[in-house]
């Protein structure tokens, strides 16, 4: 291998850092440059609700210590956004028009929030909640007794709502969700209903099955009109309607784009030597399809795979499985795989140990599982789902004792028997 091989990573989130480390683990010498558009030490947006809820201080959320980057001999460029990629000349251009040449490039550029589609004639500030600056912004505006409207009861919206509800200080929280349930792509109605009840018990109000259609100024506050034409008054509106890969700057670069950056199982894009990982990567899922799965474990795995391949190893990602873990008001909710009830599916739904478990099967194979308030192992369940393991005969055991049973079956699978 060329000892001066230059590795450039755009994006210092979970995927980018995992890649940098994987590159350094190969014995050959190589240079690594990690570029972050943000000026904060690399962090994960996942921590934002936890910072808001003051479960942790900002000092304690750096993904890696400053020494870490020295240790792995990684040049870290903070607060420098990349504006263009010249795939032919193998260089990226930065916002100051300077250029960085690369031999291998990783696009771990992450995602950006979708803007809620609504009438906003007054140009009301609709906050988002995906960056550290958003948190600072929110904190600055979050006066006691503040009425907060959260648009979207997805992953970010619910975690944000939970954090706000936990803060006290007379905050009033309203969550608007166009689907009939909270966490619609994560849980089915039954468990979502239990989650909803939990939130309501903690004073969070919900408007389900409704869209925000308009924002207007109303004195120092805001009037939020929903699709049922009823209005709600709020001091702050936070848009949590979803995220999309931050890939618009790549248009015309020659990199094949779908909803995100299209990659194969090696995390390679269509351009030789250019890889993508994390929220922006549209990579293989375990079921053979390709898609986005903007969650931490997937970003970490994809980053590691990309880094290893960039550094000359040959490894493949075995495909992501949707998996989410929530801790709402001290009650754990876990969702793995596809939790929708389809015609060819059988479901096992059990209440046990004060909680609830649901398992979804296609024939003998586990395809999805959700648990609320029951100790379980989402990693083990992910493995069983990813490998399409025939475990129907243990459905009852999995429902009753999910932690032990999933770990046993996963371990058995890992040992090839």
């Amino acid at each position: 291998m060329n000892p001066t091989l230059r590795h450039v990573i755009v994006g210092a989130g979970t995927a980018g850092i995992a890649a940098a480390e994987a590159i350094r683990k190969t014995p050959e010498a190589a240079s690594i440059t990690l570029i972050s558009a943000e000026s904060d030490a690399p962090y994960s947006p996942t921590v934002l609700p936890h910072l808001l809820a003051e479960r942790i201080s900002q000092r304690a959320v750096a993904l890696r210590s400053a020494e870490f980057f020295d240790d792995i001999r990684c040049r870290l460029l903070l607060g420098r956004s990349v504006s263009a990629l010249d795939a032919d000349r193998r260089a990226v251009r930065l916002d100051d028009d300077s250029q960085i040449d690369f031999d291998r490039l990783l696009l771990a550029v992450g995602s950006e929030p979708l803007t809620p589609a609504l009438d906003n004639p007054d140009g009301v500030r609709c906050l988002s909640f995906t960056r550290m600056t958003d948190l600072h912004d929110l904190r600055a505006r979050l006066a006691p007794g503040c009425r907060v409207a959260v648009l979207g009861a997805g992953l970010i919206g619910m975690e944000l709502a939970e954090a706000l509800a936990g803060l006290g200080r007379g905050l009033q929280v309203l969550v608007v969700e166009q689907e009939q349930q909270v966490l619609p792509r994560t849980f089915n109605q039954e468990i979502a209903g239990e989650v909803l009840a939990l939130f309501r018990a903690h004073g969070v109000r919900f408007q389900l099955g409704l869209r925000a259609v308009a924002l207007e100024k109303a004195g120092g506050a805001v009037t939020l009109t929903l699709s049922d034409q009823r209005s709600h008054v709020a001091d702050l509106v936070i848009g949590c309607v979803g995220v999309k890969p931050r890939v618009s700057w790549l248009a015309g670069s020659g990199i094949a784009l779908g909803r995100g950056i299209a990659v194969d199982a090696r995390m390679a894009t269509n351009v030789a030597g250019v890889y993508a990982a994390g929220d922006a990567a549209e990579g293989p899922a375990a079921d053979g399809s390709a898609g986005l799965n903007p969650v931490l474990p997937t970003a970490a795995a994809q980053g590691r795979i990309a880094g290893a391949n960039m550094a000359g190893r040959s490894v493949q990602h075995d495909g992501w499985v949707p998996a989410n873990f929530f801790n709402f008001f001290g009650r754990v909710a876990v969702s793995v795989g596809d939790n929708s009830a389809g015609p060819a599916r059988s479901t096992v739904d059990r209440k046990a140990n004060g909680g609830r478990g649901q398992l979804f099967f296609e024939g003998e194979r586990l395809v999805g599982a959700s648990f609320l308030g029951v100790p379980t192992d989402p990693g083990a369940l992910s493995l069983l789902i990813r490998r399409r393991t025939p475990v129907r005969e243990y459905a009852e055991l999995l429902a009753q004792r999910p932690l032990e049973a999933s770990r046993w079956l996963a371990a058995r699978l890992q040992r090839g028997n």
Partner: protein
Amino acid sequence: MTAGINPVVRDTLAIAFGACPPACRECVKACEHQRSLARIVALDLPEAPFHGAVTCLQCSEPACRDACPTGAIAQDEKGVTRLDSGRCVGCGACAIACEWGGINFDFAAARAFKCDTCDGRPACAAACPTGVLRWVESAALMRQYREPDLFTRGASLCPGCVAELGFRMAFRVIGEDAIVFAAPGCACALANGFGDKATTRLPAVMCLMTNGPSIMTGVARRLRQIGKQTRCVAFIGDGATADVGFQPLSGAAERGEPIVYICYDNEGYMNTGVQRSATTTAGARTMTTPVGPHLKGKTQAPKEVPLLMAFHGAAYVATASIAYPEDFAAKLKRALASNDGLAYVHLYAPCYVGWESPMDSVVEISRRAVETRMFPLWEADHGRFRITHPIARPRPVGDFTRLLGRFRHLGPAELDALGRQAEDRYRRIEALSAAMPLAEEHPRQ
């Protein structure tokens, strides 16, 4: 230069998968006692049925660490992955990322937590009553076995051969200041050379079945004469040791020749296609003790060569097993250190081909043989005895014979007899250790 000396090799918790007794949970209790929340989970599932234990085994590239959004999980300099609960926000990303059951979740505190090996002294392993959980000090092991492998890697022994394994293990411990002696048999392929090419970088002699210890006598005397410390070490099978080659071994032991003789005992003439030898276990089926209406395997008990050697003036005698590599290494070092006479190490070397068991079973067979008292691990220094791995509660002999097709024809009565033989063998050593005790521990080399 060599993989084995890499400093980041580290100790590990070895859990025999699914080998726990039902409803045991001693590991969980010990962990709770030590750490308040058990980091190890007993997979006690009588419905399955399955009884095992699982905890973090400290991946080299931990997915939990990579997924953690707060940097709360980090690997320390010893490679142990630690979770700093002060930085944990309870997001569960680690629990999703880990597919190995290494992350646990504290509902009350909304924090993840995991095993950190109790800084290398895991309470669970110490508490395990069955040996299912073991703390393997592999870093120390690798230091013991640090010498490079001086034998050809492409040697024509069966895949998974314990003779080949034992040979390499032994000489990693013994090192380069040695001359290796082989005799016709499976393992000689590592040392006999082929035509004008050598198969080892050590000086080597390919002896006859009948004269290994005698050639060694000549070489060892010569080395002593010219002031060399180089040790003469044989690695020779049971046929050439217990049968046709016993006389020269006896002679060399009686004369106190300063040689090290390792007998790898695969209990038969395996290189010629599985015929019985003097050390073949009673009842075993071989090609010359077949099973039919008039014959049911070997009718005689095995010749106890190590005991014969101990009563033979040998300076040091030991039995060893590849399932206990620390013990094997320590005994080899003692053998090398005993320069005032012959040192004899009897290495248990299950031949899965001749013993009729799966290709990857030799370590398990070796361990079971010890656990059932079929093959006691002991040593004798100048006629003083010590059991090096006492088996207080032996497993039933069936746990051993079950692994081997060569005992398949044995009925309950024959198995009982085999168990009694093993018991007698163990008690004999026990009695000798009581009557002529060897001081507890040699200084660690």
